[in-house]
């Protein structure tokens, strides 16, 4: 068992609509699935039906993108009510979201926007995480986001903020090692110091993902294999754990399910053997996505699969 008595689920992947039929038909030997909560909480059709069937056969974790924990807007208790209901319905092992805000004045940008890293923002986020945990009646698991700007009003480093948040709000952490890598380049900090400084006893889950190098910055695109530098951070992070649930995020240019599954199983290989990622993967993925940064998990699974094309009589 791991933090908050949350178990080590092994090596999982995101449940995406492109793979619904494959998963139902083939029952792949993946350890667990993570869902984007917002793509299911209002569904009364095929996605919810598929999720119910998947949850009967696999552990499922709910990962959200719209809690907007850092926003100055009031918390959306209608949203939280639906989240709580779904978590109970599918027996979600835990519920996570991001250290960010997504909108204000009633709007939702559908992006994970950075908050100022200072005492005042910390107080605000701690208070809201506590409120959310009380409402959901379970610990919340907070993920470090990737970010592309810093505020002049920042007074602490992100890992210091996360340490304080986890301690004061008594919440769990989802360590996204790809986000650490991305932000370390964008902000010029040492990713090793970030990883080493986290309260490892609170890390419930790890994310790995692919990213895109744009020359002047790196974008968290989730559109390809995990890069070598990220795997190395992953291996470093795992030195602090007996075993922690690991999930591969891949949302754009999504490959067939076996390719996705094989990618996350590399994590197991890197941990159980003394193998290194092949050199070919050390090349940063450089793509046209730099100007768009559109294909992130906020969009994942929002649309129906081709297999559900309407029939016409």
């Amino acid at each position, binding site marked *: 068992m791991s933090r908050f008595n949350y178990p080590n689920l092994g090596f999982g992947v995101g449940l995406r609509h492109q793979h619904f039929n494959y998963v139902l038909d083939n029952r792949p030997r993946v350890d667990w699935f993570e869902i984007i909560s917002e793509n299911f909480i209002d569904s009364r059709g095929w996605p919810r039906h598929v999720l119910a069937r998947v949850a009967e056969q696999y552990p499922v974790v709910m990962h959200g993108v719209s809690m907007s924990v850092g926003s100055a807007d009031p918390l959306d208790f209608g949203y939280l009510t639906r989240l709580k209901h779904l978590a109970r319905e599918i027996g979600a092992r835990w519920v996570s979201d991001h250290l960010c805000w997504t*909108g204000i004045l009633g709007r939702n940008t559908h992006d994970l*926007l950075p908050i100022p890293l200072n005492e005042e923002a910390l107080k605000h986020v701690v208070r809201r995480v506590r409120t959310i945990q009380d409402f959901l009646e379970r610990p919340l698991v907070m993920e470090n986001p990737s970010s592309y700007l*810093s*505020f002049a009003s920042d007074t602490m480093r992100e890992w210091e903020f996360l340490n304080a948040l986890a301690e004061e709000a008594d919440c769990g952490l989802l360590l996204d090692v790809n986000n650490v890598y991305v932000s370390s380049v964008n902000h010029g900090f040492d990713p090793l110091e970030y990883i080493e400084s986290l309260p490892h006893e609170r890390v419930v889950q790890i994310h790995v993902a692919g990213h895109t190098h744009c020359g002047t910055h790196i974008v968290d695109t989730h559109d390809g294999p995990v890069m070598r530098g990220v795997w190395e951070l992953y291996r470093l992070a795992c030195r602090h754990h007996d075993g922690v649930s690991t999930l591969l995020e891949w949302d754009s240019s999504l490959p067939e399910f076996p390719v996705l599954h094989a990618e996350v199983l590399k994590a197991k290989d890197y941990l159980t053997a003394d193998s290194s990622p092949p050199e070919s993967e050390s090349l940063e993925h450089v793509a046209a996505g730099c100007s768009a940064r559109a294909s992130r998990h906020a969009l994942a699974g929002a649309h129906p699969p081709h297999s*559900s*094309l309407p*029939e016409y009589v």
Partner: protein
Amino acid sequence: MNLDDESVGGIELGRLQGWMQAVITHPGGVGAGVASPAARRRVAVDAKSLETIVIPSETLTGAERLAIYSRSYHARLLQCMREMLPALYHALGEGLFNLFALDYLQHHPPRSYTLDNLADRFVQHLAETRPDSNALPSERESWPDFIVELVAMEWAFLKVYDGDGLEGRALPSAAGIRALDLERILESRPAPAPCLRLFAFRYPVHAYMLAVRRGERPPIPAPSETFVAATRSDFRVMLYELSAQQYAVLKAFDGQHALKDALDQIGSVSSPRPHAATIRDWLCDWASKGFLETV
């Protein structure tokens, strides 16, 4: 719990976030966003003093760092609308589609926690902003009808796909309906399925949409009065063409009024009134297609 009084480095958190949102969602980009009244009402910085709020990195200025968020905001939402409305995208082409979609997003920015509601008001927006919206109906051009109807069809398809359905429930059977005598049929109170959507179109937009979704590149069709039912069966969205009479009869079903009253109600607009035996045949057919929750 509104924390407008919470100060973050001299700027209240709400003001800072309101400023950043105004800047990155401005259709003219970061420069125009910083100079916009919506942003300056919250934080009165200009392009020169921007870095007192957002600091530069070793490779990017503060404005360039904000621009990453600005570009992605618009790109993400446009991508989402393209994927949800592929037939409209095909009909308009990328340039015009983006123009229409960005205008819509500017007037109706997303407020829901899910992108599934992103285009909820797009049909209404297109209808209100059509170039001849002030003209008499008889003097209007017809191509905007095609655009509005196509969006209505595509959006309904997505809503039927993920909305309430009848899967797993006991439904009226065709055999059961056929066993009823005609008097019982006329006294029945059919209730439409929650997933049933009925449309009276001036263009056959349903066929156009399906062709695009099959990967074809259909031309814009000629106007042709078309009645369509969209419903869901075993989680699959199904589309059926109806006659004008069938459309009128189905439209009158509400689960409250007896079928004979519904027929009386439509009698003035649908002539000749269909015979009861015909109605029974229709009910059998509609029950088998999942149009009806109860009869």
